[in-house]
């Protein structure tokens, strides 16, 4: 029975089914309260968690997003049931941390990870096309390095407890989210009272949605970066058929739920500064390609005991703190007195993206193995 389920999720029908289910769930999460075009956004939600814990002080983006805890723990449950939970790590952890950090900075310049890029497009936000083009450019650069022998080296099996660290952290944060612990007066935890951080589906719905997606994605190896990478690298359309199903179904759902609004200017939590939308996602795409998985996939791997993916997630969390503390993140378009004020990023944000690209290219060249 377990083998049959494994074969199903490994099939094209299986990955498309998973994509379609995510395509139903994400717009529903928006319907139930999540920010517009942000049913699931790994980068945004991790950034909100970082804010809730007080690692950045942008009052508009602070919330302990249960979806993230669900994504990790859903993958843990699937890995345990199907005997795939393996504690492992030791494959260039510090490099992965840095890749995670810059992946997050790039994503927050664009205002969304690859998951949200697809959901933004499904909601009619045409800026997402620019972001996805940037993502493809970054992944193409990553493929160049992979073909040239790029490798982060071998991971090694470890004691069970090391693989449990990320799932246990997620349980701990979930407990904090449920009880909204106040550790110190006027201090953490922080919960936004306005802005995207204040918009959220009810905790139970968000958690169950995360658990379900985490479970299905662990079984099907769903990966938004891998979808594009496999097409560019091997003309393999397996993963991208899942991403395509997600896009089509989310588009239909948005039309049904009246959440579709076609255009570029003043889209929800988005800016129409095309150059930096493109370059932000180029940086993200390259960092995800070098690290071997999109932000969602890194959460699922962390859930099944992969400490290296866990380190990448911690890098992303640090990148989120930096992005807001150093004013690197994108600012959304706004309508001020009836006039469109195009958002974008600060000079520091531009410098951070360019620095990230230089660092990722250096890592790409520097981590090559002649004979793997």
């Amino acid at each position, binding site marked *: 029975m377990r083998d049959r389920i494994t074969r199903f999720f490994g099939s094209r029908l299986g990955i498309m089914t998973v994509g379609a289910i995510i395509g139903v769930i994400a717009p529903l999460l928006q319907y139930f309260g999540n920010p517009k075009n942000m049913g699931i956004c790994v980068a945004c939600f991790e950034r909100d968690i970082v804010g809730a814990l007080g690692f950045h002080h942008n009052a508009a983006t602070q919330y302990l997003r249960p979806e993230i805890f669900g994504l990790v723990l859903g993958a843990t449950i699937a890995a345990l049931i199907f005997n795939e939970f*393996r504690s492992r790590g030791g494959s260039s952890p510090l490099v992965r941390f840095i890749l995670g950090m810059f992946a997050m900075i790039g994503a927050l310049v664009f205002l969304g990870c690859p998951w949200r890029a697809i959901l933004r497009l499904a909601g009619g936000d045409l800026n997402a096309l620019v972001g996805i083009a940037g993502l493809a450019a970054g992944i193409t650069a990553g493929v160049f390095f992979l073909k040239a022998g790029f490798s982060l*080296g071998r991971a*090694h099996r470890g004691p069970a407890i090391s693989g449990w660290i990320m799932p246990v952290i997620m349980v701990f944060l979930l407990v904090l989210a449920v009880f909204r612990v106040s550790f110190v007066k006027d201090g953490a935890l922080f919960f936004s009272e306005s802005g995207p951080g204040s918009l959220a589906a009810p905790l139970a719905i968000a958690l169950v949605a995360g658990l379900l997606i985490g479970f299905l994605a662990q079984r099907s*190896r769903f990966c938004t970066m*891998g979808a594009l990478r496999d097409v560019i690298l*091997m003309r393999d359309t397996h993963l991208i058929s899942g991403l395509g199903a997600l896009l089509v179904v989310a588009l239909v759902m948005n039309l049904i739920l009246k959440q579709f609004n076609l255009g570029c200017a003043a889209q929800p939590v988005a800016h129409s500064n095309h150059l930096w939308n493109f370059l932000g996602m180029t940086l993200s795409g390259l960092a995800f390609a070098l690290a*071997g998985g999109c932000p969602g996939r890194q959460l699922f791997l962390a859930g099944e005991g992969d400490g290296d993916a866990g380190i990448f997630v911690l890098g992303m969390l640090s990148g989120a703190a930096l992005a807001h503390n150093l004013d690197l993140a994108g600012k959304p378009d706004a309508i001020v007195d009836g006039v469109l004020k195009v958002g974008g990023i600060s000079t520091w944000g531009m410098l951070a993206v360019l620095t990230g690209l230089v660092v990722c290219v250096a890592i790409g060249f520097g981590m090559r193995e002649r004979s793997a």
Partner: protein
Amino acid sequence: MTIIDTRGLSCPQPVLLVRKAIEAGQKPLQVLTDSATARDNVRRLAERLGLSVTITEANDEFTMTLE
């Protein structure tokens, strides 16, 4: 028989190494992996290229024979 040890390598390296070996005409191939994801990806690649795949599992590691 050519043996490719992909244990501990992350995606997509196992598939790349196997594809390179197949393109170099190294058949039959034995592929070692400790990841179910790599097992599934290598199996999909092999089946796409019309090769037969047999898989044995021991101690949470997989030995795949492609021919």
